[in-house]
């Protein structure tokens, strides 16, 4: 992944000069990760798309404030996605008309019909709820470090934290998240443990 992200700065600079193709390339490059992150936070496919779209629209609208960290705009995008997901109603409102006007493929099947997808949905919802218990800053840290495998230093840079502060916050956030997920696991007894999403926790 590292090598793919080294090119952001050039594309970003060209985007700022008005080259739509460069911005399109950035979109192609980061779309899926931003979408997965948005989905993780809201547990709903449609909302995940809206949040992903809003994050990219914000990337452009707030372009003067974007911080390129370690050659990548992804950390900034992910933080923005997190903010969007936490304040979904308010954040997406700015783009609601545009989002509604964008065409979508009709859903060909009911997601709840497939038992696997039903469990998967439940797991996704559980995780989204557990993540919702974190403070904004902790959620940013977990997103960047656990899910997207950025270094603590990079996460600290984009969040205006010292690396030491980021590290201790991260430790506490992991404990909180584990507690939230364990509580759900025992209460609802899902067929599989929801812990794989925390695999990034391994040292």
């Amino acid at each position, binding site marked *: 992944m590292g090598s793919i992200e080294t090119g952001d700065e*050039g594309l970003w*600079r*060209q*985007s700022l*000069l*008005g*080259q*739509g*193709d*460069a*911005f*399109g390339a950035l*979109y*192609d490059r980061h*779309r*899926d990760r931003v*979408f*997965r992150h948005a*989905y993780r936070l809201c547990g709903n*496919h449609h909302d995940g*798309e809206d949040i*992903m*779209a809003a994050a*990219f*629209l914000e990337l*452009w609208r707030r372009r003067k404030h974007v911080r390129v960290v370690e050659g990548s705009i992804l950390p900034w995008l992910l933080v923005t996605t997190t903010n969007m997901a936490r304040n979904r109603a308010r954040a997406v409102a700015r783009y609601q008309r*545009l989002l509604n006007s*964008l*065409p*979508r*493929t009709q859903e060909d099947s009911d997601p709840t019909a497939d038992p696997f*997808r039903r469990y*998967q949905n439940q797991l996704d919802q559980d995780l989204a709820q557990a993540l919702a218990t974190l403070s904004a800053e902790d959620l940013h840290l977990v997103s960047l470090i656990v899910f997207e495998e950025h270094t603590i230093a990079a996460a600290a840079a984009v969040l205006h934290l010292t690396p030491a502060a980021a590290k201790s916050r991260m430790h506490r956030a992991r404990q909180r998240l584990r507690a939230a997920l364990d509580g759900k696991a025992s209460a609802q007894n899902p067929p599989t443990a929801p812990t794989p999403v925390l695999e990034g926790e391994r040292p």
Partner: protein
Amino acid sequence: MNQLHVDNVFSDALRAELTARVEKAAPVRARKRTRLWAGTAVVAGIGVLGGVGATAAGLFVTPGSTQVTPLASPVTETHTGTATVQLGPPPEGTTGIEMQLHCLSAGTFSYSRGASNTCDQDDVGTPQDWTGYTIPLTPGEESITITTSPDASWKITAQYVNTKTTEWATNADGDTYGAQNENGSPDMVAVIATNGTRGYVYRTELEDADGTAAMKTFKSPAEALAWQEARLGKDFAIPVYNVTGKTVVGEFVISYSAGNFGVVGEPAPECAGVPPTLGPGEAWPCPGLSPTETGYPAIPVPSN
């Protein structure tokens, strides 16, 4: 999680919206490069453009064409980052500095008077990495400064030249004829027909075929795009006449294709003589020769 993908229809529409926003917010110069005319007229018979060399040699002169005479040997230098190229004192009779810039890496390269050119990584090593200008001479100006980011590399070739635009001629019917130049188009525009014959097309017919006439009627970008869309992949032929404007000697074809530029290949000799001077902030990205960039249709300016 493998069912977890962004809806392609939604994604494509979003992507189009994003790129449109970026282009819309672009600085004027950058926007001009890629505005409405994503696909420009591609002119048949373009390979014959090398014939312009004959003009430079003074053998034939198309009325209204520009004669560029080099007055000093060219200076070629390669730099990385912002640098100034010294040309020495201009010889007698110098009217401008002809420069050609090749991007050796991606970056934005600004010239004097606010003109600039941006190269993508994809442009490097292709004909698209080339930009040509003729800058009118300012007394005391003996150097060219290219401003760019510290890591951007470029190669410049510059020389003092004398440029002179000749007058259009008039035929027996009172129609002016000659090459398009900074004064606009004569009644009959010099072209090379598809059969290689040099001749003239009526400006009115040319403007109907290349969209210049239609462009004036568009009230919105959507209209222009629809017009362009309708012509995509089609050819429009107009008759080429000799100087009398009565005898047909061939035909001139304008074809519309997406994203292509009118002139391809090594552009330097073809571009050398077209616009002799540039106003403040004006760039002339010659390889394009598109209506957007020059205000003229993608028509070569051949010698007689």
